[in-house]
């Protein structure tokens, strides 16, 4: 058993445990914290695949920014602290069957899948390579994404402004 395997198993277990906890916990804030651990474990898996740039971005965007926005949303809105509900038996059985079917399909699919031999030099200067690819091959989608984000930003400001004006009228 190599160190890489050990690292992979620990990280994979942490990711799965975080996901399972996220579904099973009853407190919303606890769920988000479980989700943080899943995100961090996935970032760790990226590192074992020597994609450190993607790992850093994963930590920065998902465990940093998105989690905090979710926490903000939860804390600022009124909500029931515990959201436990009972499901009818039929639903449980049906979803169990669905999960089993999905597992079987994925299991056989992955077993049959062959990705060819992996490229050996992907880890060398991969940050630079990502930059070059983004700004040469994928320049139009990249710029379009930035326009989309800008529109979202402006939209958010407009929505927030409208609320303020309404309150002022009152």
């Amino acid at each position: 058993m190599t160190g890489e395997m050990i690292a992979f198993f620990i990280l994979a277990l942490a990711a799965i445990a975080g996901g399972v906890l996220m579904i099973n916990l009853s407190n919303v804030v606890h769920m988000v914290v479980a989700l943080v651990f899943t995100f961090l474990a996935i970032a760790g898996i990226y590192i074992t695949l020597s994609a450190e740039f993607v790992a850093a971005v994963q930590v920065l965007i998902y465990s940093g920014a998105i989690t905090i926005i979710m926490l903000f949303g939860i804390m600022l809105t009124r909500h029931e602290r515990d959201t436990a509900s009972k499901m009818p038996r039929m639903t449980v059985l049906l979803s169990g069957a669905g999960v089993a079917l999905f597992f079987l399909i994925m299991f056989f699919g992955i077993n049959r899948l062959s990705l060819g031999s992996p490229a050996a030099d992907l880890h060398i200067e991969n940050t630079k390579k990502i930059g070059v690819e983004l700004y040469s091959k994928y320049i139009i989608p990249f710029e379009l994404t930035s326009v989309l984000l800008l529109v979202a930003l402006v939209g958010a400001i407009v929505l927030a402004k409208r609320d303020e004006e309404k309150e002022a009228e009152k």
Partner: protein
Amino acid sequence: MMNHLLSSPPGWIHAAIFFGLGACLLVIVLGFVTYAILAERKVLGFMQLRPGPNRVGGRFGLLQTVADVLKLLIKEDTIPKLADKPLFILAPVLAFAPAFMVLAAIPFSEHLKFSDLSIGLLYYIAISGITTVGILMAGWASNNKYSLLGGMRSAAQMISYEIPLVISVIGVILFSGSLNLTDIVNGQEKVAYIFLSPLGFIVFFISSIAELNRTPFDLPEAESELVAGYHVEYSGFRWAFFMLTEYVYLFAMAALTTVLFLGGWKPIPFLGFIPGIIWFALKFSVIVFFMIWIRGTMPRLRADQLMEFAWKVLLPVALLNIFVSAVVKELFLR
């Protein structure tokens, strides 16, 4: 020796050696924190025309912090009855661990570094973001309105100031063409980046003070409004962990500023006979002193001024800095 360790194939012995070195670094950082707190109190004291700590440990109060830490460790550890217990316990850990993790990326001298990451700078920024989650969690788990307000303020402030902080560094990345902190220092062989992008340095320094939650940006723990902010309900060693986080980040941020803008371990011309690590320590101490100086000089900002300052002043200036840096690079560094 460390360069050799970093480039040879990994094994269990490497893991053991790095574990030992990491423990050494932790001890050094704890020593720094002990005396940084003393230095802060002394400097603030001198600025306000009073002697500062001068009883425990001789004339200069050299053992004052040691006594304070001892007091903290033997204090009763209280957890409020209605607090969210697991999160209350997890929060100080989640806040402190990243503070120490970021130190792994920083090269202290040519031979003394713990990693040679190609994304060192990005690593620092990404990992330091996790602390915000810890602080927000502490604020929420305490089940106290003051700590919740403090935690919210802290998260809002850290997110807002992270943006100018990152954008102001882009100038440096443009000059060096790398995110590797060692390469960034090596790029400053002739001239430090503080002279090439002074605008970037100013924005970076201001945002780093805000990231550290220090005066004039210490709204998350504004004593006059929020008692103590997100750690109102903490006591004993859990509280000590938050204090430790703050000062370890001071260490890390001062080290990062030294590496990015002051040329790390590179000497001033004609003084190359002094070893690199001493140069690093000198530049580092200057930054720490500036931080303490500013704390003793500036009043606290108001919450609305704080956000406006980040978005309306620092962000445009940081964007301008990218443009100016690109022009400087094209004109002078080709």
